[in-house]
């Protein structure tokens, strides 16, 4: 069952167009939303939640129009837009006291457990927290009202590797019951390698692909060869990097099958994204 359906989402800014963005988030799954800075990840998330007024499209949450039922839908969505940077002179306990009044399903026990798990002192002010701790506080608030869907925009940026790993464990725990889902935007692709079930890749305001994580990786191959072979295979390469001894590049899996003489290896998500972004310019400078 689809918990979130985004259909033909459109938003035009001077110099940028979010162009008919469509993808779904399945119940009980983690959807990784990837793309480079400025690709439209945050604009998509903000448009979905009506923070940005979309020019067109439709967003369904649990089958109902999210924009028409904004209040009810947002009660069942946990949202983290980076670190918690609001009311920095207020104490954590003051912010939590205000925030929890908006949720009938606020779970104080979970909130206290998360504070303790993240080593957050409720007596501290937001301004006294590090960047990573502010992200953790935002997560603690988002995870404490029994949300069915978590929408997280760059939640792991600013966190140390141990905290990031811990967070990914929490994400897996959340979706384990098959009823909760996570839409997770990031440019730290390694985080998604560890936890995402599905991948949606956005580039220049348009969705390149939205599929399950295995199919996403299986559709591509990393290839490498000699400099002399570059001319022959250049039309098949999505993107490549030339170096003193030859080149390394990305090909579609079906093209790689016919690439005789090249070394072929499975592609990881980060390489897929890097070489796809090189698509327009193809080559990077030889090093």
């Amino acid at each position, binding site marked *: 069952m689809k918990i979130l359906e985004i259909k033909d989402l459109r938003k035009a800014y001077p110099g940028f167009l979010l162009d008919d963005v469509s993808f779904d988030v399945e119940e009980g799954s983690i959807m990784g939303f990837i793309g480079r800075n400025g690709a439209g990840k945050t604009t998509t998330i*903000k448009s979905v939640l009506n923070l940005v007024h979309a020019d067109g499209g439709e967003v369904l949450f649990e089958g109902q129009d999210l924009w028409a039922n904004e209040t009810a839908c947002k009660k069942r969505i946990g949202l983290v837009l980076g670190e918690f940077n609001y009311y920095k002179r207020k104490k954590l306990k003051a912010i939590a006291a205000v925030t929890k009044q908006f949720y009938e399903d606020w779970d104080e026990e979970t909130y206290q457990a998360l504070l303790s798990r993240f080593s957050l002192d409720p007596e501290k002010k937001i301004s006294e927290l590090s960047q990573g701790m502010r992200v953790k506080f935002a997560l603690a608030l988002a995870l404490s009202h029994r949300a069915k869907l978590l929408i997280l925009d760059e939640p792991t940026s600013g966190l140390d590797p141990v905290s990031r790993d811990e967070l990914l464990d929490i994400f897996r725990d959340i979706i384990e019951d098959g009823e909760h889902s996570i839409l997770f935007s990031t440019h730290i692709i390694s985080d998604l390698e560890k936890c995402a079930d599905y991948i949606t890749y956005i580039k220049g305001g348009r969705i390149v692909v939205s599929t399950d994580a295995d199919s996403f990786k299986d559709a591509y191959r990393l290839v490498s060869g000699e400099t002399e072979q570059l001319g022959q295979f250049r039309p098949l390469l999505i993107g490549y990097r030339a170096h003193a001894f030859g080149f390394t590049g990305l090909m579609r899996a079906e093209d790689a099958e016919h690439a005789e003489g090249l070394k072929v290896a499975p592609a990881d998500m980060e390489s897929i994204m890097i070489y796809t972004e090189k698509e327009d310019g193809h080559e990077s400078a030889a090093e």
Partner: protein
Amino acid sequence: MKALLNKEFKLCLHPAVFIYLALILMLLIPNYPYLVSCFFVCNAIFFCFQQARENGDAMYTAMLPVSKAQAVRARVLFVVIIQAIDLLLVAGMCAFAIVSMPEHNAGGTDHGLSLLAFALVLFAIFNLIFLPSFYKTGYKAGSAFLKSAIGVWIWLVLCEGMMIASNAVMESGADIALFRFIHENIDCMPKTADAWTAQGILFGTGILIYVVCTLLACRVSIKRYEKVSVQ
């Protein structure tokens, strides 16, 4: 709405509100344009908007399970509550002054229902200009306040100027019907039946103008804020 209003008072309320509300004591100054004290309350409201903006309130609120329309309605109600508290304090000070300061106010409107009526219209002008102007962008509080302050001061100078003029004309011995009416029924403590009637009508009109203007301001603000991208 209760949760949103709680948020407004716990997070957005600027300490200046208490200081400026305390300036209601200016109503005890003999011969003073008392309407000025209401302008200070407008100033305090502007500080609240500015404080909320600097603390990223728009984004924090947008992440909560509320619509933009609900967020605007709560903020307007927050403004109305502060203004209502000020009006109650003005009423209390007027009642106190009627008993303890029998001298006529030569510096502007005398203590009475007229003062409350003028204050209501002053707040109505402020709300009608400041709120829609602010919610056009959701962050330009300074220019919204500047525009509203011009409107408020035109009204303030007009009211207090009219009262001072009527006082001066009556003291000069000239008998002009309009100024005599103002002097005997509007710019005075309401002690006669005629004065109570005139000031009562003025006060009722003030309430009507305040309600209509504030509702209109709220409606236009919601419409404008719907189009704003919360960044």
